[in-house]
């Protein structure tokens, strides 16, 4: 038995636990404020998505999801670390001049309380339980259908609750993860796997850039060097 066959069989065996972990990870992305926890949840979600995807597309293709998810998590981690180093004055490139002490503790600034987001996710879960039997997706296995529906709901909820680029970006990627499960259940095209993976990577790059832009602005004076007042 090859490694690929082994992974495929394991993925079928652990289908339900993988779906549960993916759903919990998606909820954590929306609820948690701490960037480390959120990134860990996203990395976990990517691995679980790859396991679930390997049930509908070849394992080699599904493993691309782990690579893409891992690279996005690394990019976002580096963006967050850059903000953190800057706040500690560790960058040594003058960045510390831009940031005030204690910045790390306040970043990322989110628009709602964690308890409110927890309540929102709980209400979404109620809506999910009430509606899941009415959701009909063609050609999709019931387990994947439930996962797709949950990831879609929680992703959209995250987009509604967050405007801070790290959380909102990961909520968008969560939504797209659910969509990938649906798309590859419907059609199995190698080019589509490559293009969606490449697109997610570019999206991750743009999100990382926005994380830095917003993170620096949260502590930078409105009229810093080279910044006009209308840009602040």
């Amino acid at each position, binding site marked *: 038995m090859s490694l690929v066959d082994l992974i495929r069989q394991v993925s079928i065996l652990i289908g339900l636990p993988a779906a549960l972990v993916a759903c919990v990870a998606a909820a954590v992305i929306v609820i948690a404020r701490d960037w480390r926890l959120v990134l860990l949840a996203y990395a976990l979600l990517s691995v679980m998505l790859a396991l679930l995807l390997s049930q509908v597309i070849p394992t080699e293709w599904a493993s691309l999801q782990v690579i893409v998810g891992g690279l996005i998590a690394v990019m976002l981690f580096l963006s967050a670390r850059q903000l953190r180093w800057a706040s500690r004055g560790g960058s040594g490139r003058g960045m510390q001049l831009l940031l005030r002490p204690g910045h790390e503790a306040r970043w990322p600034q989110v628009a709602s309380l964690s308890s409110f987001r927890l309540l929102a996710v709980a209400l979404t879960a109620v809506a999910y339980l009430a509606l899941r039997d009415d959701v009909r997706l063609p050609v999709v296995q019931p387990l994947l259908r439930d996962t797709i529906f949950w990831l879609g709901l929680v992703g959209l909820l995250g987009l509604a609750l967050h405007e801070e680029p790290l959380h909102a970006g990961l909520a968008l990627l969560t939504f797209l993860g659910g969509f990938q499960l649906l798309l590859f259940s419907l059609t199995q095209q190698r080019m589509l796997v490559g293009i969606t993976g490449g697109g997610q990577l570019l999206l991750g790059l743009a999100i990382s850039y926005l994380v830095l832009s917003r993170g620096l602005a949260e502590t930078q004076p409105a009229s810093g060097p080279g910044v*006009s007042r*209308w840009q602040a």
Partner: protein
Amino acid sequence: MIAGPTLLLSLLLLAAGALYFLRRVEALAALLAAGLTALLALGLWRLPLALPVRLAGRSVWLGQPLTWADLSLQITPAAQALLVFLLGAGAVTFILAWRTYQGRTFYPLGLALLALWATVALLQPLTWAPFAVVLTALLAVFLIQAGQPGDTRGAWRQLLFPTLAVPLFLVAAWYIDQAPLNPDDQTPYRIAGWLLIAGFILLLQPAPLHVAIPAVAGKAPLVVAAFLWIGGQSTVLFLLQRFLVTYPWLASAVDSARWLLWAGIFTASMGGVLAATQERLGRFAGYAALYDYGILMVAMGLRGTAGLPTAIWLLLTRTLALLTLATGAATVRHHMESDRLDEIAGAVSRLPWAVTALIMGGFALAGMPLTAQFASRWALLQLVAENDTRWALLLVLGAAGVLVGTVRAGRACFGKLSGSPVEREPGGLAFLAILLVAASVLLGLFPQLLTGPVAAVILPLSTLGP
């Protein structure tokens, strides 16, 4: 033999790469970018699509498709018209950006954006084209932020909706593929129709999904923002037209003309009302552009024999109006170091032509007489009134809102200068502002000057194939 798409895209992308390294020599970068896009526009306009021609000793066939696996790119007559328009608008914008301090990365990234818009216009199968729209939105993130930390709402919002639209198009593609397997069952077409319409609502972003437009106007350099609106909105509307012609069942599966009309009227009304109440130049420009965008959607929604020519006419005149307003507002914002209406008093004494461009651009977007938009707006209002006079009244009320906003912005520029000394507008910038205002007045007096270009585009657009 070199295929047209290969030549076009490779030239744009190679130039974008080269200009990235030359961006610090801004005058050179601007002139090279404008020169290349003007040359490409001229070449596409003059050279035949159906026959190979020799260019610099090489055989080039503009109409030859470029294929890769299931994907293909081909310059059709309708796409040719759009490309000439986009490249021409790009050439003008590069020159304006050079004189209005829009940031150095605009030249390479602007060329890359043009390449991606061209990809949207040429790509087959159609359901893959929204991928290229998302790529343009990703690239626009870097243009909107322009290397500055700050509010990321504009960049994020303009990225969000196209990204959410892509899944809808891909699932619709699956339903379209399934439909021929059971010809008696119309359900796949119906579902695909709804998915495509939902996808287009996310791509078009009418009110209340318009949130990206004012946010981009508030953050991005304004000429860059105008370029993004001109290119992005015209490309998406062109894509919609391609879908409607390629999939005739789409018009019957859902009443696309009606929802486009309603969306346009709502967008224009909301844009007009909010333009009247803004306290910042950037956001005023954003809402005035939103009103104008709603008008364009209404023209597309009317379709028929008169709707499409009016839409093309509006597309040309709005480009001039948006660039005029953006040039004026960007100059005032840069020199006065603020775009709050209560902080730009006295601008007219130091920046007379920039303020003139700002006011004339606003008047043009409101569709006032003696501006480029007057005749095209008048024609549209007559068409709308034939359907329902209440809709025409709503559009006129929106125009009144833009007019009030323009008067408020213009009035704010008068009065006494306060605070730090303000640098006088450079001669080159004044010259460009005069040119834009003069062109606007000329087209207002002689709208028939655009009859030829509009007539040339109508037939290919109404019959464009897959």
